[in-house]
């Protein structure tokens, strides 16, 4: 029952398991991996039928980048559920507290200590990041890129904004909650809406598929960026409160 020990969490208790147990575990893991690797090496791969299928249907998918075509057309249902996964995590780490629900999403205040370099840097960088994020989103149709890359970049902008200290985000605000669900909501809306024309959920009409995929991706980008910033807040800001964040003192606890 190795997992029973997971919470002896400070560094001093490391190496809690006796070495004989470690040896047995290592032996078992090594044997399993050896067997897996051997069977992988022995096996001769057959032709992959999906390679030709993806290539031949790419034209009807509405995008030129095959990865985007798989993610948002052929296997769009996986991506839909993946956005749901992000929503779950956002809800799990969201600060609880109804009283903040009336506060605005973004509040601007004087930072405790100003970091002039970061502020100057931010003034230059922020517009560039937003534009680049939009470019990544747009280019995802034909080149590597897309909602996740764009969302991650946008989240980076949000995190820089937080670090500068002038702004703080309240994720219980109605706007924030809308941002968190808009990716999933838009995906469902489009997925259901296309039933009117094609009769099948998530099956975009060929002529419209490019634009519909873009609409979904824009919404997904907003949600991804919001979720990532929320994760940063939940993991970074909270522990700063009770303890002073001095690099040397952490280790002794």
């Amino acid at each position, binding site marked *: 029952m190795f997992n029973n020990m997971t919470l002896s969490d400070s560094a001093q208790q490391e190496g809690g398991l006796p070495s004989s147990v470690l040896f047995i575990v290592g032996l078992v893991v090594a044997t399993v991996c050896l067997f897996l690797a051997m*069977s992988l090496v022995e096996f001769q791969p*057959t032709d992959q039928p999906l390679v030709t*299928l993806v290539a031949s249907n790419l034209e009807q998918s509405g995008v030129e980048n095959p990865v985007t075509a798989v993610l948002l057309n052929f296997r769009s249902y996986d991506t839909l559920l993946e956005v749901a996964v992000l929503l779950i995590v956002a809800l799990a780490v969201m600060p609880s507290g109804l009283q903040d629900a009336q506060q605005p999403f973004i509040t601007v205040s004087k930072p405790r200590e100003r970091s002039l370099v970061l502020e100057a840097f931010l003034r230059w960088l922020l517009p560039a990041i937003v534009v680049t994020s939009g470019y990544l989103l747009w280019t995802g149709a034909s080149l590597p890129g897309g909602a996740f890359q764009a969302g991650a970049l946008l989240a980076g902008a949000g995190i820089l904004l937080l670090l500068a200290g002038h702004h703080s985000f309240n994720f219980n605000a109605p706007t924030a909650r809308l941002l968190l*669900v808009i990716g999933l909501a838009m995906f469902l809306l489009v997925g259901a809406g296309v039933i009117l024309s*094609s009769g099948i959920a998530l099956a975009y009409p060929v002529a419209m598929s490019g634009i519909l995929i873009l609409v979904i991706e824009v919404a997904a980008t907003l949600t991804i960026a919001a979720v990532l910033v929320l994760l940063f807040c939940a993991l970074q800001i909270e522990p700063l409160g009770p303890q002073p964040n001095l690099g040397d003192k952490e280790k002794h606890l």
Partner: protein
Amino acid sequence: MPVFDVASLLPLLIAIPLIGAIFSVLLSTKHAQVLVGLLSASSLVCVMAIILANLPSGGTEFATPIRYALAGWKAPLGIALSLDGFSALLLSLTVFLVTVLTIYSAYYFAASPARVRFWPLWWLLVAGINALFLSADIFNVYVTLEIIGLAAVALVALSGNKAGLTAALRYLLVGLLGSLCYLLAVALLYHVYGTLDFAQLAATAESNPLSWAALALITVGLVLKTALVPLHFWLPHAHGSAPAPVSAILSALVVKASFYLLVRFWMEILAPAVTNEALMLLGILGGIAILWGCVQALRTKRLKLMVAYSTVAQIGYLFLLFPLLMSTEGASGSQLAAQHQSALAAVSYFIVAHACAKAAMFIAAGNIIHSLGHDDIARLQGMAKYMPLSLFTFAIAGGSLIGLPPSAGFIAKWLLLNVAIDTNQWWWVVIILMGGLLAALAIFRVLDLAFIKPEQASDYIAPDNWQKVPVAMPASGLALALCTMALGFNADLIIDLIAIGGGE
């Protein structure tokens, strides 16, 4: 004659809970969230009823599952949803339990600030469970497993105390590890067979080292999530420290979801790679689980922990399915198919019986905690006077878990015993009967204390912080417990449903 295609209703079973989740995030007032919950639950019930009414009924000549190709792309390229008898049964069970638990949760979380996050997570969990039962794609199943795992962990963590958070973290790490084992198997299977679709894999799978490796990885990953005995260590505390409706759905449905997948892989998708020895090994672990779970249930001091250990034991019964699938020498193909069918029917019945009984028990335990503020078994003495409904529910559900005659648990064990005797594996009979005996000891230990005679109980008065619970809370538990009784009288319904689209 169906006027429309039943298959086109399948995506609704996933879309409705997702929409419910979106609205419960957006509308965070108490009444709005409850209203959204009730609307989602009732529309799920309607959709499921229409689907069940339009299922091809009768014999095995309609033995093809209903399929729906999402996004209009056929199987190797796109993802299909599929529904056969086994998944239809589990979906109906899900919809039914979710409806009852939604009503219960509306009261349970009425005064708790945790409700703001409970409702969206609840509906996301339901969407994940439905999606898993409908999925016909091994990678898509991975995503649904993660939805279920992460949502379940987030719900366990709602309790907010240290024990709950610790249990949630352990549950999460175990779940992530299990999913990764599964995902590695997906990579291997895709490499070998070039498809992710259940039916296409089942048609091309053969017995080679990579198939064995994949099956072993899938089994380890999913057994970790199902909590079969050597890997059950995370379950009692995760289930025991979650809020009551969450414990109920975790024990009743979430562990069954990964068990369902195991059955799919062992009976259908990778059936050629299965050997008798491997089947026997799972059976032996199941047998150990029954005895170990019961003994632990007898020893624990907390009521909810006892119910959770009883889940460990009940999971053991489910794994008795596997040795009963063993092929014997000289048996013809049709004989083997019939044997598989009856073993699957017995275990499906077991799943339903256990789900209803266990949900009822967790509801009863939740009510007891709600009104007493603790679930220390020793301090329950004489409490039947104050909480007659909850303890009555506990007694009926307990009767079903033990396997006392009019209940569904009895029929389930009876069917299982029949198959065990038919396949000449009498030793399982001994284990099943011993398991029943031990479960009886554990449950009567509680009932004996709670229903103790009034003159002896004069010392035991309700504590000061005693709170009365709204009558709907014990009533929903009682409804579930009575369902286990009703199912005991209507066994054919379930057995017929399983026959559609067969496990083969």
